[in-house]
Protein backbone atom coordinates (compact mmCIF):
# COMPACT_ATOMS: atom_id res chain seq x y z
CA UNK A 1 0.00 0.00 0.00
CA UNK A 2 1.40 3.39 -1.02
CA UNK A 3 -0.31 6.27 0.74
CA UNK A 4 0.73 8.81 -1.88
CA UNK A 5 -0.97 6.80 -4.61
CA UNK A 6 -3.99 6.19 -2.40
CA UNK A 7 -4.35 9.93 -1.78
CA UNK A 8 -3.73 10.79 -5.44
CA UNK A 9 -6.36 8.29 -6.58
CA UNK A 10 -8.88 9.98 -4.31
CA UNK A 11 -7.74 13.39 -5.56
CA UNK A 12 -8.43 12.34 -9.16
CA UNK A 13 -11.96 11.48 -8.05
CA UNK A 14 -12.60 14.28 -5.58
CA UNK A 15 -14.99 16.42 -7.61
CA UNK A 16 -16.92 13.42 -8.85
CA UNK A 17 -16.97 11.98 -5.34
CA UNK A 18 -18.34 15.19 -3.84
CA UNK A 19 -21.11 15.40 -6.44
CA UNK A 20 -22.05 11.74 -6.07
CA UNK A 21 -22.10 11.98 -2.26
CA UNK A 22 -24.49 14.93 -2.46
CA UNK A 23 -26.64 13.08 -4.97
CA UNK A 24 -26.55 10.01 -2.73
CA UNK A 25 -27.73 11.98 0.28
CA UNK A 26 -30.55 13.47 -1.79
CA UNK A 27 -31.55 10.12 -3.21
CA UNK A 28 -31.45 8.45 0.19
CA UNK A 29 -33.47 11.23 1.78
CA UNK A 30 -36.22 11.07 -0.79
CA UNK A 31 -36.98 7.37 -0.23
CA UNK A 32 -38.66 7.72 3.21
CA UNK A 33 -40.49 10.78 1.87
CA UNK A 34 -41.84 8.70 -1.03
CA UNK A 35 -42.80 5.95 1.38
CA UNK A 36 -44.61 8.43 3.59
CA UNK A 37 -46.41 10.00 0.65
CA UNK A 38 -47.31 6.97 -1.48
CA UNK A 39 -47.24 3.77 0.57
CA UNK A 40 -50.96 3.93 1.40
CA UNK A 41 -51.87 4.60 -2.22
CA UNK A 42 -49.73 1.75 -3.42
CA UNK A 43 -51.13 -0.56 -0.75
CA UNK A 44 -54.65 0.31 -1.92
CA UNK A 45 -53.59 -0.27 -5.52
CA UNK A 46 -52.25 -3.69 -4.62
CA UNK A 47 -55.33 -4.57 -2.59
CA UNK A 48 -57.60 -3.51 -5.48
CA UNK A 49 -56.06 -6.24 -7.62
CA UNK A 50 -55.52 -3.80 -10.47
CA UNK A 51 -51.82 -4.54 -10.30
CA UNK A 52 -50.18 -7.75 -9.15
CA UNK A 53 -48.11 -7.00 -6.03
CA UNK A 54 -44.95 -8.20 -7.80
CA UNK A 55 -45.31 -5.34 -10.29
CA UNK A 56 -45.20 -2.84 -7.45
CA UNK A 57 -41.83 -4.12 -6.22
CA UNK A 58 -38.38 -3.61 -7.60
CA UNK A 59 -36.09 -6.51 -6.87
CA UNK A 60 -36.28 -7.38 -3.19
CA UNK A 61 -37.64 -3.96 -2.23
CA UNK A 62 -41.12 -2.55 -1.99
CA UNK A 63 -42.94 0.58 -0.94
CA UNK A 64 -45.14 -1.30 1.52
CA UNK A 65 -42.73 -0.94 4.45
CA UNK A 66 -40.03 1.58 5.27
CA UNK A 67 -37.29 -1.10 5.41
CA UNK A 68 -38.61 -2.42 2.09
CA UNK A 69 -38.45 1.09 0.72
CA UNK A 70 -34.84 1.33 1.80
CA UNK A 71 -34.06 -1.91 -0.02
CA UNK A 72 -35.87 -0.56 -3.05
CA UNK A 73 -33.87 2.65 -2.85
CA UNK A 74 -30.61 0.71 -2.82
CA UNK A 75 -31.59 -1.57 -5.71
CA UNK A 76 -33.03 1.18 -7.85
CA UNK A 77 -31.10 1.90 -11.07
CA UNK A 78 -30.28 5.37 -9.78
CA UNK A 79 -28.57 3.94 -6.70
CA UNK A 80 -26.77 1.43 -8.90
CA UNK A 81 -25.62 4.30 -11.10
CA UNK A 82 -24.39 6.36 -8.14
CA UNK A 83 -22.46 3.47 -6.65
CA UNK A 84 -21.47 2.14 -10.06
CA UNK A 85 -19.65 5.36 -10.88
CA UNK A 86 -16.87 4.18 -8.60
CA UNK A 87 -17.50 0.45 -8.32
CA UNK A 88 -17.70 -0.01 -12.09
CA UNK A 89 -16.59 3.16 -13.89
CA UNK A 90 -13.62 4.31 -11.85
CA UNK A 91 -12.43 0.80 -11.03
CA UNK A 92 -12.50 -0.54 -14.57
CA UNK A 93 -10.65 2.49 -15.94
CA UNK A 94 -8.21 2.93 -13.06
CA UNK A 95 -5.37 0.84 -14.44
CA UNK A 96 -6.47 0.23 -18.04
CA UNK A 97 -7.00 3.97 -18.48
CA UNK A 98 -3.51 4.78 -17.23
CA UNK A 99 -2.18 2.04 -19.46
CA UNK A 100 -3.95 3.41 -22.52
CA UNK A 101 -2.81 6.97 -21.79
CA UNK A 102 0.74 5.79 -21.20
CA UNK A 103 0.97 7.15 -17.65
CA UNK A 104 1.06 3.69 -16.08
CA UNK A 105 4.65 3.15 -17.14
CA UNK A 106 5.65 6.54 -15.72
CA UNK A 107 4.09 5.46 -12.45
CA UNK A 108 5.54 1.96 -12.54
CA UNK A 109 8.98 3.42 -13.20
CA UNK A 110 8.86 4.39 -9.51
CA UNK A 111 9.79 1.85 -6.85
CA UNK A 112 6.30 0.47 -6.47
CA UNK A 113 5.29 -3.12 -7.00
CA UNK A 114 2.23 -3.89 -9.07
CA UNK A 115 0.64 -5.45 -6.00
CA UNK A 116 1.15 -2.23 -4.03
CA UNK A 117 -0.23 -0.21 -6.94
CA UNK A 118 -3.28 -2.43 -7.17
CA UNK A 119 -3.91 -2.41 -3.43
CA UNK A 120 -3.49 1.38 -3.17
CA UNK A 121 -5.96 2.05 -5.97
CA UNK A 122 -8.40 -0.55 -4.67
CA UNK A 123 -8.30 0.92 -1.17
CA UNK A 124 -9.05 4.40 -2.51
CA UNK A 125 -11.94 3.15 -4.63
CA UNK A 126 -13.37 1.09 -1.78
CA UNK A 127 -13.26 4.17 0.41
CA UNK A 128 -15.13 6.11 -2.28
CA UNK A 129 -17.75 3.36 -2.51
CA UNK A 130 -18.08 3.28 1.28
CA UNK A 131 -18.57 7.04 1.38
CA UNK A 132 -21.26 6.96 -1.30
CA UNK A 133 -23.06 4.07 0.38
CA UNK A 134 -22.85 5.86 3.72
CA UNK A 135 -24.22 9.00 2.09
CA UNK A 136 -27.21 7.12 0.70
CA UNK A 137 -27.91 5.39 4.03
CA UNK A 138 -27.32 8.62 5.89
CA UNK A 139 -29.76 10.35 3.57
CA UNK A 140 -32.31 7.62 4.25
CA UNK A 141 -32.00 8.04 8.00
CA UNK A 142 -32.20 11.82 7.59
CA UNK A 143 -35.25 11.54 5.33
CA UNK A 144 -36.94 9.19 7.80
CA UNK A 145 -36.26 11.69 10.58
CA UNK A 146 -37.74 14.52 8.53
CA UNK A 147 -41.03 12.67 7.98
CA UNK A 148 -41.05 11.40 11.58
CA UNK A 149 -40.54 7.73 10.73
CA UNK A 150 -37.06 7.15 12.08
CA UNK A 151 -38.59 5.12 14.87
CA UNK A 152 -39.54 2.47 12.31
CA UNK A 153 -35.88 1.80 11.65
CA UNK A 154 -33.76 -0.31 13.94
CA UNK A 155 -30.72 1.95 13.79
CA UNK A 156 -28.68 -0.57 15.74
CA UNK A 157 -28.77 -2.72 12.60
CA UNK A 158 -27.45 0.06 10.37
CA UNK A 159 -23.76 -0.94 10.74
CA UNK A 160 -24.70 -4.41 9.51
CA UNK A 161 -26.58 -2.86 6.59
CA UNK A 162 -23.50 -0.80 5.80
CA UNK A 163 -21.21 -3.82 6.08
CA UNK A 164 -23.41 -5.97 3.85
CA UNK A 165 -23.80 -3.18 1.31
CA UNK A 166 -20.09 -2.51 1.36
CA UNK A 167 -19.40 -6.19 0.74
CA UNK A 168 -21.75 -6.17 -2.24
CA UNK A 169 -20.21 -3.10 -3.85
CA UNK A 170 -16.70 -4.20 -2.96
CA UNK A 171 -17.45 -7.28 -5.06
CA UNK A 172 -18.29 -5.11 -8.07
CA UNK A 173 -15.27 -2.88 -7.37
CA UNK A 174 -12.79 -5.74 -7.22
CA UNK A 175 -14.32 -7.20 -10.36
CA UNK A 176 -13.96 -3.86 -12.17
CA UNK A 177 -10.37 -3.48 -11.05
CA UNK A 178 -9.62 -7.07 -12.01
CA UNK A 179 -10.84 -6.28 -15.51
CA UNK A 180 -8.82 -3.09 -15.47
CA UNK A 181 -5.55 -4.91 -14.80
CA UNK A 182 -6.41 -7.51 -17.42
CA UNK A 183 -6.88 -5.28 -20.45
CA UNK A 184 -4.66 -2.67 -22.10
CA UNK A 185 -7.60 -0.46 -23.02
CA UNK A 186 -10.45 0.71 -20.82
CA UNK A 187 -13.19 -0.19 -23.32
CA UNK A 188 -13.27 -3.96 -22.73
CA UNK A 189 -12.76 -3.48 -18.99
CA UNK A 190 -15.70 -1.11 -18.72
CA UNK A 191 -17.85 -3.29 -20.94
CA UNK A 192 -17.30 -6.47 -18.95
CA UNK A 193 -17.63 -4.73 -15.58
CA UNK A 194 -20.87 -3.10 -16.60
CA UNK A 195 -22.16 -6.35 -18.06
CA UNK A 196 -21.34 -8.10 -14.77
CA UNK A 197 -23.46 -5.58 -12.85
CA UNK A 198 -26.30 -5.72 -15.37
CA UNK A 199 -26.41 -9.51 -15.31
CA UNK A 200 -26.90 -9.43 -11.55
CA UNK A 201 -29.52 -6.73 -11.85
CA UNK A 202 -31.33 -8.69 -14.55
CA UNK A 203 -31.37 -11.88 -12.47
CA UNK A 204 -32.68 -10.00 -9.44
CA UNK A 205 -35.44 -8.17 -11.32
CA UNK A 206 -36.43 -11.20 -13.36
CA UNK A 207 -36.90 -13.27 -10.23
CA UNK A 208 -38.89 -10.58 -8.49
CA UNK A 209 -41.29 -10.04 -11.39
CA UNK A 210 -41.79 -13.64 -12.44
CA UNK A 211 -42.55 -16.17 -9.75
CA UNK A 212 -41.40 -19.11 -11.87
CA UNK A 213 -38.00 -17.47 -12.21
CA UNK A 214 -37.64 -16.60 -8.55
CA UNK A 215 -34.68 -18.98 -8.33
CA UNK A 216 -32.64 -16.61 -10.49
CA UNK A 217 -32.48 -14.13 -7.62
CA UNK A 218 -30.29 -16.48 -5.62
CA UNK A 219 -27.67 -16.07 -8.34
CA UNK A 220 -27.75 -12.31 -8.16
CA UNK A 221 -25.32 -10.63 -5.80
CA UNK A 222 -27.82 -7.80 -5.43
CA UNK A 223 -30.22 -10.28 -3.85
CA UNK A 224 -27.70 -10.88 -1.09
CA UNK A 225 -27.97 -7.36 0.19
CA UNK A 226 -31.44 -6.82 1.59
CA UNK A 227 -31.49 -3.94 4.09
CA UNK A 228 -35.18 -4.55 4.67
CA UNK A 229 -34.46 -7.98 6.12
CA UNK A 230 -31.52 -6.76 8.15
CA UNK A 231 -33.50 -3.85 9.59
CA UNK A 232 -36.30 -6.21 10.60
CA UNK A 233 -33.91 -8.53 12.39
CA UNK A 234 -33.91 -11.23 9.70
CA UNK A 235 -30.32 -10.81 8.54
CA UNK A 236 -28.83 -13.88 6.91
CA UNK A 237 -25.11 -14.29 7.65
CA UNK A 238 -24.81 -16.29 4.45
CA UNK A 239 -25.44 -13.10 2.50
CA UNK A 240 -22.35 -11.56 4.04
CA UNK A 241 -20.29 -14.61 3.23
CA UNK A 242 -21.48 -14.63 -0.37
CA UNK A 243 -20.82 -10.97 -1.10
CA UNK A 244 -17.40 -10.97 0.55
CA UNK A 245 -16.45 -14.18 -1.25
CA UNK A 246 -17.53 -12.49 -4.48
CA UNK A 247 -15.23 -9.61 -3.58
CA UNK A 248 -12.25 -11.77 -2.70
CA UNK A 249 -12.24 -13.94 -5.83
CA UNK A 250 -11.57 -11.11 -8.34
CA UNK A 251 -9.10 -9.62 -5.87
CA UNK A 252 -7.15 -12.87 -5.76
CA UNK A 253 -7.31 -13.13 -9.54
CA UNK A 254 -5.93 -9.63 -9.97
CA UNK A 255 -3.13 -10.19 -7.48
CA UNK A 256 -2.08 -13.28 -9.38
CA UNK A 257 -2.49 -11.97 -12.92
CA UNK A 258 -1.35 -8.34 -12.72
CA UNK A 259 2.21 -8.90 -11.47
CA UNK A 260 2.72 -11.56 -14.14
CA UNK A 261 1.43 -9.55 -17.07
CA UNK A 262 3.72 -8.18 -19.72
CA UNK A 263 3.28 -4.46 -20.12
CA UNK A 264 4.44 -3.81 -23.66
CA UNK A 265 4.82 -0.26 -24.92
CA UNK A 266 1.45 1.48 -25.25
CA UNK A 267 0.16 1.63 -28.80
Amino acid at each position, binding site marked *: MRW*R*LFIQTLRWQRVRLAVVILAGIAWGAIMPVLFDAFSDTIRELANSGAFPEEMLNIGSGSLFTLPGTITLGLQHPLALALLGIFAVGASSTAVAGERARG*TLEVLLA*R*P*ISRVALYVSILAALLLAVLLVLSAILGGMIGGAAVVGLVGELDLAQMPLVLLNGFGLWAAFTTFGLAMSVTFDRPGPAIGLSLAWLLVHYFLEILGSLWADAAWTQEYSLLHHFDPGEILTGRADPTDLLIVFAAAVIPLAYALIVFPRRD*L*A*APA
Partner: protein
Amino acid sequence: MEGTPQRSIISTRGLTKHYGSVAALTDLTLDVEQGEIFGFLGPNGAGKSTTIRTLLGFLHATRGEARVLGMDVGTESVEIRRLTGYLPGGIALYDSLTGEQVLDYLVEMQGREPYRRADLCERLELPPSVLRRRVRDYSRGMRQKIGVVQALQHDPELAILDEPTEGLDPLMQQAFYRILDDLRREGRTVFFSSHVLSEVERLCDRVAIIREGRLMAIHDVGELLARRRRRVTLRWRSGVPDPVTLPGLEDAEIDGNRIIGTLSGEIAAFVRSIASPNLDDLLIEPASLEEAFLEYYADVPAPADTEPDDR
Protein backbone atom coordinates in the same frame (compact mmCIF):
# COMPACT_ATOMS: atom_id res chain seq x y z
CA MET B 1 37.77 5.52 -16.90
CA GLU B 2 40.64 3.38 -18.14
CA GLY B 3 42.69 1.70 -15.46
CA THR B 4 39.96 1.80 -12.85
CA PRO B 5 37.92 -1.26 -11.99
CA GLN B 6 34.52 -1.04 -13.65
CA ARG B 7 31.29 -2.26 -12.19
CA SER B 8 28.64 -3.56 -14.53
CA ILE B 9 25.56 -1.44 -14.03
CA ILE B 10 23.59 -3.36 -16.62
CA SER B 11 24.43 -6.92 -17.46
CA THR B 12 22.40 -9.22 -19.66
CA ARG B 13 23.11 -12.80 -20.66
CA GLY B 14 21.16 -14.42 -23.45
CA LEU B 15 18.19 -12.18 -22.77
CA THR B 16 15.32 -13.24 -24.97
CA LYS B 17 11.76 -12.05 -25.25
CA HIS B 18 9.17 -13.69 -27.44
CA TYR B 19 5.57 -12.62 -27.93
CA GLY B 20 4.06 -15.89 -28.96
CA SER B 21 5.94 -16.84 -32.10
CA VAL B 22 7.35 -13.35 -32.60
CA ALA B 23 10.91 -12.87 -31.40
CA ALA B 24 11.20 -9.30 -30.14
CA LEU B 25 14.61 -9.88 -28.59
CA THR B 26 16.99 -12.78 -29.09
CA ASP B 27 20.01 -13.72 -26.97
CA LEU B 28 21.01 -10.22 -25.96
CA THR B 29 24.29 -10.22 -24.06
CA LEU B 30 25.85 -6.93 -23.08
CA ASP B 31 27.45 -5.08 -20.18
CA VAL B 32 27.14 -1.40 -19.42
CA GLU B 33 29.83 -0.13 -17.10
CA GLN B 34 29.52 2.42 -14.34
CA GLY B 35 30.05 5.98 -15.43
CA GLU B 36 29.58 5.49 -19.14
CA ILE B 37 27.00 6.76 -21.53
CA PHE B 38 25.90 3.76 -23.48
CA GLY B 39 23.97 4.21 -26.67
CA PHE B 40 21.49 1.63 -27.83
CA LEU B 41 20.98 2.11 -31.49
CA GLY B 42 18.59 0.60 -33.91
CA PRO B 43 15.74 1.39 -36.23
CA ASN B 44 12.16 1.47 -35.04
CA GLY B 45 10.98 -2.01 -34.10
CA ALA B 46 14.52 -3.30 -33.55
CA GLY B 47 13.88 -4.27 -29.93
CA LYS B 48 15.25 -1.23 -28.09
CA SER B 49 12.12 -0.55 -26.09
CA THR B 50 11.62 -4.26 -25.41
CA THR B 51 15.09 -4.38 -23.89
CA ILE B 52 14.45 -1.32 -21.75
CA ARG B 53 11.06 -2.55 -20.58
CA THR B 54 12.57 -5.90 -19.65
CA LEU B 55 15.32 -4.19 -17.66
CA LEU B 56 12.68 -2.26 -15.73
CA GLY B 57 10.50 -5.29 -15.06
CA PHE B 58 7.60 -4.24 -17.29
CA LEU B 59 8.19 -7.31 -19.44
CA HIS B 60 9.19 -10.75 -18.30
CA ALA B 61 12.04 -12.37 -20.17
CA THR B 62 11.28 -15.55 -22.04
CA ARG B 63 14.84 -16.72 -21.49
CA GLY B 64 18.14 -15.49 -20.21
CA GLU B 65 18.95 -13.19 -17.34
CA ALA B 66 19.45 -9.51 -16.72
CA ARG B 67 20.89 -7.65 -13.78
CA VAL B 68 20.70 -3.93 -13.18
CA LEU B 69 22.82 -2.32 -10.48
CA GLY B 70 23.73 -5.85 -9.44
CA MET B 71 20.10 -6.85 -8.90
CA ASP B 72 18.00 -9.35 -10.76
CA VAL B 73 15.35 -7.69 -12.91
CA GLY B 74 12.90 -10.51 -12.30
CA THR B 75 12.91 -10.45 -8.52
CA GLU B 76 14.31 -7.08 -7.48
CA SER B 77 12.79 -4.68 -9.95
CA VAL B 78 11.28 -2.46 -7.25
CA GLU B 79 14.70 -1.80 -5.74
CA ILE B 80 16.17 -1.32 -9.21
CA ARG B 81 13.58 1.34 -9.96
CA ARG B 82 14.34 3.09 -6.68
CA LEU B 83 17.83 3.83 -7.99
CA THR B 84 16.91 4.39 -11.60
CA GLY B 85 15.45 7.23 -13.59
CA TYR B 86 13.41 6.34 -16.64
CA LEU B 87 12.22 8.43 -19.53
CA PRO B 88 9.79 6.47 -21.71
CA GLY B 89 9.69 7.10 -25.41
CA GLY B 90 6.90 9.54 -26.25
CA ILE B 91 6.24 10.15 -22.58
CA ALA B 92 2.65 10.61 -21.42
CA LEU B 93 1.95 12.82 -18.42
CA TYR B 94 -1.08 13.63 -16.31
CA ASP B 95 -2.80 16.30 -18.36
CA SER B 96 -4.95 17.62 -15.55
CA LEU B 97 -1.97 18.41 -13.33
CA THR B 98 0.47 21.27 -13.64
CA GLY B 99 4.06 20.50 -14.54
CA GLU B 100 5.07 21.15 -10.96
CA GLN B 101 2.37 18.85 -9.60
CA VAL B 102 3.49 16.09 -11.95
CA LEU B 103 7.08 16.44 -10.79
CA ASP B 104 6.02 16.57 -7.12
CA TYR B 105 3.82 13.51 -7.48
CA LEU B 106 6.42 11.45 -9.28
CA VAL B 107 9.28 12.36 -6.97
CA GLU B 108 7.13 11.57 -3.94
CA MET B 109 6.36 8.21 -5.48
CA GLN B 110 10.09 7.80 -6.03
CA GLY B 111 10.67 8.29 -2.34
CA ARG B 112 13.71 10.53 -2.83
CA GLU B 113 14.30 14.25 -2.70
CA PRO B 114 14.29 16.20 -5.99
CA TYR B 115 17.97 17.10 -5.60
CA ARG B 116 18.48 18.06 -9.21
CA ARG B 117 15.14 19.56 -10.12
CA ALA B 118 16.03 23.22 -9.78
CA ASP B 119 19.17 22.83 -11.85
CA LEU B 120 17.46 20.75 -14.53
CA CYS B 121 14.56 23.17 -14.83
CA GLU B 122 16.92 26.09 -15.17
CA ARG B 123 19.03 24.39 -17.85
CA LEU B 124 16.00 23.19 -19.77
CA GLU B 125 14.33 26.58 -19.51
CA LEU B 126 11.37 25.52 -17.41
CA PRO B 127 10.70 28.58 -15.25
CA PRO B 128 8.13 28.50 -12.44
CA SER B 129 5.61 30.28 -14.66
CA VAL B 130 5.73 27.35 -17.08
CA LEU B 131 5.67 24.74 -14.33
CA ARG B 132 2.50 26.29 -12.94
CA ARG B 133 0.65 25.66 -16.20
CA ARG B 134 -1.35 22.50 -16.77
CA VAL B 135 0.37 19.77 -18.77
CA ARG B 136 -2.51 19.72 -21.23
CA ASP B 137 -1.37 23.18 -22.38
CA TYR B 138 2.22 22.07 -22.98
CA SER B 139 3.81 21.62 -26.38
CA ARG B 140 5.44 18.32 -27.19
CA GLY B 141 8.87 19.77 -26.45
CA MET B 142 7.78 21.03 -23.05
CA ARG B 143 6.34 17.64 -22.18
CA GLN B 144 9.62 16.07 -23.17
CA LYS B 145 11.48 18.50 -20.93
CA ILE B 146 9.23 17.56 -18.02
CA GLY B 147 9.94 13.95 -18.92
CA VAL B 148 13.66 14.55 -18.70
CA VAL B 149 13.31 16.33 -15.37
CA GLN B 150 11.12 13.60 -13.84
CA ALA B 151 13.66 10.99 -14.92
CA LEU B 152 16.66 12.77 -13.45
CA GLN B 153 15.35 15.00 -10.66
CA HIS B 154 16.02 12.42 -7.93
CA ASP B 155 19.65 12.00 -9.00
CA PRO B 156 19.45 8.35 -10.04
CA GLU B 157 22.44 6.02 -10.18
CA LEU B 158 21.32 4.93 -13.61
CA ALA B 159 19.28 6.85 -16.16
CA ILE B 160 17.46 4.84 -18.79
CA LEU B 161 16.30 7.15 -21.52
CA ASP B 162 14.24 6.03 -24.49
CA GLU B 163 14.63 8.44 -27.43
CA PRO B 164 15.30 11.33 -25.03
CA THR B 165 15.71 14.16 -27.52
CA GLU B 166 12.51 13.53 -29.45
CA GLY B 167 10.62 16.78 -29.57
CA LEU B 168 13.43 18.92 -28.16
CA ASP B 169 14.54 21.85 -30.26
CA PRO B 170 18.28 22.03 -31.18
CA LEU B 171 19.10 24.44 -28.35
CA MET B 172 17.43 22.21 -25.80
CA GLN B 173 19.13 19.18 -27.29
CA GLN B 174 22.47 20.86 -26.64
CA ALA B 175 21.40 21.68 -23.09
CA PHE B 176 20.36 18.07 -22.64
CA TYR B 177 23.71 16.82 -23.96
CA ARG B 178 25.51 19.01 -21.43
CA ILE B 179 23.36 17.58 -18.65
CA LEU B 180 24.38 14.06 -19.66
CA ASP B 181 28.03 15.12 -19.85
CA ASP B 182 27.75 16.34 -16.27
CA LEU B 183 26.12 13.10 -15.18
CA ARG B 184 28.98 11.15 -16.69
CA ARG B 185 31.51 13.35 -14.92
CA GLU B 186 29.75 12.58 -11.65
CA GLY B 187 30.01 8.85 -12.27
CA ARG B 188 26.38 8.30 -13.15
CA THR B 189 25.54 5.81 -15.84
CA VAL B 190 23.28 6.58 -18.76
CA PHE B 191 21.71 3.99 -21.03
CA PHE B 192 19.83 5.55 -23.84
CA SER B 193 18.20 4.36 -26.97
CA SER B 194 18.19 6.37 -30.10
CA HIS B 195 18.04 6.14 -33.81
CA VAL B 196 19.82 9.49 -34.18
CA LEU B 197 23.46 8.71 -34.88
CA SER B 198 24.65 12.27 -34.46
CA GLU B 199 23.63 12.37 -30.81
CA VAL B 200 25.19 9.00 -30.18
CA GLU B 201 28.38 10.35 -31.73
CA ARG B 202 28.18 13.45 -29.57
CA LEU B 203 27.46 11.66 -26.30
CA CYS B 204 28.28 8.01 -26.09
CA ASP B 205 31.31 6.15 -24.91
CA ARG B 206 30.07 2.92 -26.42
CA VAL B 207 27.21 1.97 -28.61
CA ALA B 208 25.35 -1.25 -29.22
CA ILE B 209 23.59 -1.83 -32.50
CA ILE B 210 20.44 -3.88 -32.43
CA ARG B 211 18.58 -5.03 -35.46
CA GLU B 212 15.48 -7.20 -35.62
CA GLY B 213 15.88 -8.16 -31.99
CA ARG B 214 19.50 -9.26 -32.27
CA LEU B 215 22.62 -7.51 -31.09
CA MET B 216 24.74 -6.82 -34.15
CA ALA B 217 27.78 -5.33 -32.45
CA ILE B 218 29.07 -3.22 -29.59
CA HIS B 219 31.54 -0.50 -30.50
CA ASP B 220 33.69 1.99 -28.73
CA VAL B 221 32.50 5.18 -30.38
CA GLY B 222 35.97 6.74 -30.29
CA GLU B 223 37.50 3.79 -32.12
CA LEU B 224 34.74 3.71 -34.66
CA LEU B 225 35.21 7.38 -35.39
CA ALA B 226 39.01 7.05 -35.51
CA ARG B 227 38.87 4.53 -38.29
CA ARG B 228 36.21 6.27 -40.28
CA ARG B 229 37.01 7.65 -43.69
CA ARG B 230 37.18 11.35 -44.37
CA ARG B 231 36.36 13.13 -47.58
CA VAL B 232 39.37 15.16 -48.76
CA THR B 233 39.59 17.91 -51.37
CA LEU B 234 43.00 19.36 -52.29
CA ARG B 235 43.51 22.34 -54.66
CA TRP B 236 46.88 23.09 -56.11
CA ARG B 237 48.22 26.24 -57.71
CA SER B 238 50.41 24.12 -59.99
CA GLY B 239 52.15 20.77 -60.07
CA VAL B 240 49.32 18.48 -59.07
CA PRO B 241 51.01 15.39 -57.53
CA ASP B 242 50.23 11.84 -58.42
CA PRO B 243 47.55 10.70 -55.91
CA VAL B 244 49.23 7.34 -55.41
CA THR B 245 52.09 9.20 -53.73
CA LEU B 246 49.73 10.49 -51.03
CA PRO B 247 49.53 7.90 -48.16
CA GLY B 248 46.07 6.89 -47.04
CA LEU B 249 44.26 8.54 -49.91
CA GLU B 250 41.83 6.24 -51.68
CA ASP B 251 39.36 6.53 -54.53
CA ALA B 252 41.22 9.61 -55.69
CA GLU B 253 40.08 11.54 -58.74
CA ILE B 254 41.89 14.42 -60.42
CA ASP B 255 39.65 17.23 -61.57
CA GLY B 256 41.79 19.97 -63.13
CA ASN B 257 43.93 21.32 -60.31
CA ARG B 258 41.92 19.46 -57.68
CA ILE B 259 42.30 16.03 -56.13
CA ILE B 260 39.23 14.56 -54.46
CA GLY B 261 39.39 11.35 -52.50
CA THR B 262 38.76 9.63 -49.19
CA LEU B 263 41.23 9.32 -46.40
CA SER B 264 41.25 6.59 -43.78
CA GLY B 265 43.46 5.75 -40.86
CA GLU B 266 46.18 8.01 -39.48
CA ILE B 267 46.34 11.39 -41.14
CA ALA B 268 49.81 12.54 -39.98
CA ALA B 269 51.65 10.87 -42.87
CA PHE B 270 49.15 12.26 -45.32
CA VAL B 271 49.54 15.80 -44.00
CA ARG B 272 53.31 15.57 -44.21
CA SER B 273 53.11 14.36 -47.81
CA ILE B 274 51.04 17.29 -49.00
CA ALA B 275 53.11 20.00 -47.29
CA SER B 276 54.03 22.18 -50.27
CA PRO B 277 53.95 25.90 -51.22
CA ASN B 278 51.90 24.82 -54.24
CA LEU B 279 49.02 23.70 -52.07
CA ASP B 280 46.30 26.34 -52.46
CA ASP B 281 43.48 24.86 -50.32
CA LEU B 282 42.71 21.81 -48.22
CA LEU B 283 39.31 20.62 -47.11
CA ILE B 284 38.90 17.56 -44.89
CA GLU B 285 35.30 16.72 -44.09
CA PRO B 286 34.91 14.28 -41.22
CA ALA B 287 32.56 11.48 -42.06
CA SER B 288 29.66 11.33 -39.65
CA LEU B 289 29.09 8.35 -37.43
CA GLU B 290 26.20 7.60 -39.68
CA GLU B 291 28.55 7.19 -42.62
CA ALA B 292 30.89 5.14 -40.45
CA PHE B 293 28.04 2.79 -39.63
CA LEU B 294 26.91 2.61 -43.18
CA GLU B 295 30.41 1.66 -44.22
CA TYR B 296 30.68 -0.85 -41.43
CA TYR B 297 27.38 -2.51 -42.07
CA ALA B 298 27.25 -2.25 -45.82
CA ASP B 299 27.97 -5.94 -46.19
CA VAL B 300 26.39 -7.25 -43.00
CA PRO B 301 23.16 -9.11 -43.75
CA ALA B 302 20.14 -8.61 -41.57
CA PRO B 303 19.27 -11.46 -39.22
CA ALA B 304 17.10 -13.76 -41.26
CA ASP B 305 15.65 -16.03 -38.65
CA THR B 306 13.70 -13.44 -36.69
CA GLU B 307 10.57 -11.60 -37.55
CA PRO B 308 10.58 -7.83 -37.23
CA ASP B 309 7.98 -6.37 -34.93
CA ASP B 310 7.02 -2.93 -33.95
CA ARG B 311 7.82 -3.08 -30.26
